[in-house]
């Protein structure tokens, strides 16, 4: 069928652009890694190495090769999952990343979940009752969310909910007594502890994650509710909404059954993008909450001048980011009956 052919062609286009974007990502990290004033050879051999030792190390690291050759070698390494060794942890960067990534994933996923569960209904109601009190609240919430430094709000949250009220667990992913007590399956603590049936550990993990996740959720909510609202306003002024009203449908069915159905697909895109930005936005939050995730990892290694680790982390977050973009694009093309 022609439609299938068009889809295949579109898919090909998306994949090609994905490959080019990934190549661009690697090129940028490669350039950053090469132009930086920190000498990677010195980092390895130390300040007191003789010129001969220095030269030997330089050759061993392949830094005497032309840049193009180095770049091709770099691509090969990255494709094999080899980001080099971190000088601050002493482990291969890929191993470190496997350890810290699930913590970030868990945090960002829960944050997005909170953002969607509150932000979407808020945006829908704000649009359906435009100018009403829900709309005003949503507007203020979004405005404050767009204006508040996330790390500051995190600190204040820690002060109030942990320091003063004592409602939540403090910094970190879990209390020290639960450390290493739950068998690692997914490395997502909430899921692992639930799988193990260890509800004490689950409650502990939950009390640690809820504050940073709510914080990220708030920022995601600000974005999602605004986008939902503007999508809904566009749909609610469409002619088919009048049709639905002429049929005698209740306002609830007009809003949710007709208008909302039409924004479901673009909303998926927004949610994917918001999830991507939380993966990134968690950098500052993780530092505030001493969350052992990829953000903490990147900043800690960055301050130590550990470029292998920084660039490895950058690539992983970048790939997630690009992957989410492509995924939302694909979803858009394959879920929306009009896009065929």
């Amino acid at each position: 069928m022609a439609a299938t052919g068009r889809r295949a062609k579109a898919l090909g286009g998306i994949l090609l652009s994905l490959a080019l974007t990934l190549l661009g990502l690697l090129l940028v990290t490669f350039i950053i890694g090469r132009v930086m004033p920190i000498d990677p050879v010195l980092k390895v051999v130390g300040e007191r190495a003789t010129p001969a030792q220095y030269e030997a190390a330089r050759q061993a690291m392949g830094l005497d090769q032309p840049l193009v050759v180095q770049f091709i070698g770099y691509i090969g390494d990255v494709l094999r999952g080899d980001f080099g060794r971190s000088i601050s942890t002493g482990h291969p960067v890929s191993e470190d990343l496997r350890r810290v990534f699930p913590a970030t994933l868990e945090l960002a996923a829960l944050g997005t979940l909170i953002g969607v569960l509150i932000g979407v209904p808020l945006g829908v109601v704000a649009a359906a009752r435009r100018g009403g009190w829900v709309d005003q609240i949503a507007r203020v919430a979004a405005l404050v969310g767009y204006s508040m430094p996330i790390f500051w709000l995190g600190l204040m949250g820690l002060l109030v909910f942990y320091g003063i009220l004592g409602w939540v667990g403090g910094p970190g992913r879990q209390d020290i007594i639960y450390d290493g007590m739950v068998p690692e399956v997914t490395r997502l603590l909430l899921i692992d502890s639930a799988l193990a049936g260890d509800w004490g550990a689950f409650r502990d993990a939950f009390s640690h994650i809820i504050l940073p996740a709510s914080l990220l959720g708030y920022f995601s909510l600000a974005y999602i509710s605004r986008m939902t609202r503007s999508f809904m306003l566009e749909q609610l002024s469409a002619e088919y909404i009048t049709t639905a009203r002429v049929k005698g449908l209740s306002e609830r069915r007009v809003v949710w059954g007709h208008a909302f159905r039409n924004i479901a697909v673009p909303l998926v895109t927004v949610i994917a993008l918001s999830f991507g930005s939380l993966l990134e936005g968690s950098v500052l939050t993780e530092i505030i909450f001493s969350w052992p995730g990829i953000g903490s990892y990147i900043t800690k290694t960055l301050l130590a001048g550990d470029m292998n680790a920084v660039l490895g982390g950058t690539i992983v977050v970048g790939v997630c980011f690009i992957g989410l973009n492509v995924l939302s694009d694909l979803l858009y093309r394959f879920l929306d009956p009009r896009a065929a």
Partner: protein
Amino acid sequence: MTDLSTRSPSTRDWLLSDAPSTRRQARLGSLYQGWLTFRANTLAMVGLVILIALALMAIFAPWLSPYDPVAQNLADRLMPPSAAHWLGTDALGRDILSRIIWGSRVTLFIVGTVALISPILGLLIGTVAGFAGGWVDQILMRITDIFLAFPKLILALALVAALGPGIVNAVLALAITGWPPYARLARAETLAVRNADYIAAARLQGAGPARLLIGHVWPMCVSSLIVRVALDMAGIILSAAGLGFLGLGAQPPLPEWGAMISDGRTYILDHWWVAAMPGMAIFIVSLAFNLLGDGLRDVLDPKGAKE
């Protein structure tokens, strides 16, 4: 002939004239119309007033600040807000209010330079891509897409890591990560006007590409870019504060709001004001930029409420 018996028209009438007699009158008139719309928006006016206050604060910092922002006084360290120190003191006994006042200079410097460099870079790249078309367009837009696909903050972090911490490098990192959306916008505007009749007319008069671009395309892109910049200002402030918080922006003892929050982090549970006060300053200023941006969008956005 002017009749001496009629009163000379007021400036306001002159500005609001339906039939401006000169180009200057028309331009000033439309500016004035925009100002009237803007003035009717209370929240936007609040934003503007806050920002004017901020600018004044930065200019008159030496006279406004009660203490030297970097003078340490260990006897008075971590004092809560009081009559002597309105916003308290930090761990080195420095007056927080004075540091916030001086910090406004750093903030305005960073925001101002980023908000100048990014859009101009974007304007150049976007209009050239849109105007040239063909492979130039393809390549420039592909580069733009790659930058857009990057997580911004992480890219800025990696850049600062490579370049070394400091205000100038922070500005550079934010500008490099910030231009792609402007390029997209400028390209879209360029494509919209590229084939317009007035461009063709100018071309027939013998205008070269550079002249067309600067004289006829850029002015069309400027108003939407300004709106976008105004809306992005808050984001720039927050990113800059984030870099400062990570110790990658302004270096001590320079008072920078993000770095001040970072200083107060250790004492958050017992001496909350150290971190809270600079955060409030960031919040108020970025809120003001957001309000101003919303108001400007209503005035300048051609697709907005304006007829």
